[in-house]
């Protein structure tokens, strides 16, 4: 096999030698150190194979022996190269292809992350990039141990990680730390105190001694339900006080809206610009020269995906939406509507567990804005668990 490869690389010819004494031809070639193989005798000569170099060398010899040689077929690399000699581009292309192949096979093409649950993949990719791992970097420069150590120091939630370079993919395996179990702190002795000023409307005490009555007013920090209980044998028992104490609480909220403001609205005009992504390069691949004075842009990229690996080849589309700037001046009616809506939003989102008892809105107009001062009364649970003081 090896011999065949060597012969192929050097190139050889199958030839026919015609003459009176083919034996002499064999003897002389062997004496001159010319290798002949597959020598088959024919009627008036012989057929054999010989390397191209030797075939050129035996020309004088055949003339001396009065033997005529004729090539039957040519084999090997020199003939193939000769055949494609005029096509220089082909050879150049092959060389460039080989160089590209070598370069690209030493570059990170994609990063895959497995095992994340609480830690965001985007955040982890960002941290990895800060440590030198990103698409397009030279993979032989990556110091895996140092990267692992740095990422573990930077992200507390990761307990163990392994960075493996498999081909052109960096595979990151992560094991997150186990969360600390929440300790039950509802068992220690404590009091219930008022979280804010108000008038008590309802008391639902399941454990502890109630210290206030319905209808009484309390201020923030007043003791509502005590955790110190007296037993039947006149001894003191410390318990974990538990109660829901509802009270009417007064809140004040000031909302503001400007009289004149600018408002941006989207029009139907938009422009798409595509860019071709390849590793760390991106090339524009669409022609659109339309520009807007004011626009909002969104970016959207799609990468090729093969066998669970995201390849660094794709298209990034930037869509520019034209926006129009409008100057709006509010009147009393629209301002009231806006402020009422804001007040409703405040009630829904900032006081979701409270019941609205009353709302009193007072809208006033200044030089440049409308101001709404609202007095609320919410009925809400003001019970707040407070541990015993040392003095208690």
């Amino acid at each position, binding site marked *: 096999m090896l011999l065949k490869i060597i012969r192929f690389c050097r190139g050889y010819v199958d030839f026919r030698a015609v003459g009176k004494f083919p034996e002499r031809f064999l003897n002389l070639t062997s004496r001159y150190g010319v290798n002949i193989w*597959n020598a088959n005798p024919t009627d008036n000569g012989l057929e054999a194979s010989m390397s191209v170099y030797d075939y050129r060398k035996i020309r004088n010899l055949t003339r001396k022996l009065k033997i005529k040689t004729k090539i039957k077929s040519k084999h090997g690399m020199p003939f193939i190269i000769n055949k494609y000699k005029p096509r220089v581009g082909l050879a150049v292309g092959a060389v460039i292809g080989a160089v590209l192949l070598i370069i690209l096979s030493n570059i990170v093409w994609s990063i895959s992350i497995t095992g994340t649950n609480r830690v965001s993949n985007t955040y982890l990719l960002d941290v990895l990039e800060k440590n030198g791992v990103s698409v397009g970097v030279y993979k032989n420069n990556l110091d895996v141990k140092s990267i692992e150590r740095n990422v573990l120091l930077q992200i507390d939630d990761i307990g163990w990680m392994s960075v493996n370079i498999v081909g052109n993919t960096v595979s990151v395996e992560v094991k997150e730390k186990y969360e600390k179990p929440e300790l039950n702190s509802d068992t220690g002795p404590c009091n219930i105190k008022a979280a804010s000023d108000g008038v008590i409307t309802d008391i639902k005490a399941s454990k502890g001694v109630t210290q206030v009555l319905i209808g009484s007013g309390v201020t923030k920090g007043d003791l509502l339900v005590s955790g110190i209980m007296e037993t039947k044998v006149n001894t003191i028992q410390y318990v974990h006080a538990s109660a829901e104490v509802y009270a009417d609480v007064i809140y004040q909220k000031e909302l503001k809206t400007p009289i004149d403001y600018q408002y941006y609205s989207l029009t139907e005009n938009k422009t798409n610009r595509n860019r071709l992504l390849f590793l760390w390069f991106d090339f524009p691949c669409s022609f659109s020269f339309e520009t807007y004075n004011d626009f909002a842009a969104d970016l959207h990229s799609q990468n090729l995906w093969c066998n669970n690996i995201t390849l660094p080849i794709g298209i990034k589309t930037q869509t520019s939406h034209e926006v129009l700037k409008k100057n709006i001046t509010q009147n009393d009616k629209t301002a009231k509507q806006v402020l009422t809506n804001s007040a409703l939003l405040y009630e829904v989102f900032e006081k979701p567990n409270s019941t609205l008892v009353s709302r009193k809105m007072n809208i006033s107009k200044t030089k440049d804005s409308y101001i709404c001062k609202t007095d609320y009364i919410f009925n809400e649970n003001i019970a707040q668990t407070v541990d015993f003081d040392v003095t208690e």
Partner: protein
Amino acid sequence: MQKNKNSSPRNGLYDSIGLNLGSGMPMIEMLGNRRITLEGSTGILLYESQNIKINTNKMVVSFCGRGLTVRCISNSCVEIEGYITKVEFIT
């Protein structure tokens, strides 16, 4: 330092049976009747598909058979392949 030609184990074996390789005798190695290697050739005298005659220092060795070919040839060694029916030593 020159190495003694007769110091190889093979020569030692021939010495033990009273043969001297330096005497110019050809050494013939046969693989059944399909392949023959002849060492000590001084040239091919006849080359036909049914008969190959090889000259050596002391004699002419003739191989008869069918489809005889010279598989490879060097200065003093010839390898013949084919269906050999007869080996003749002509002195």
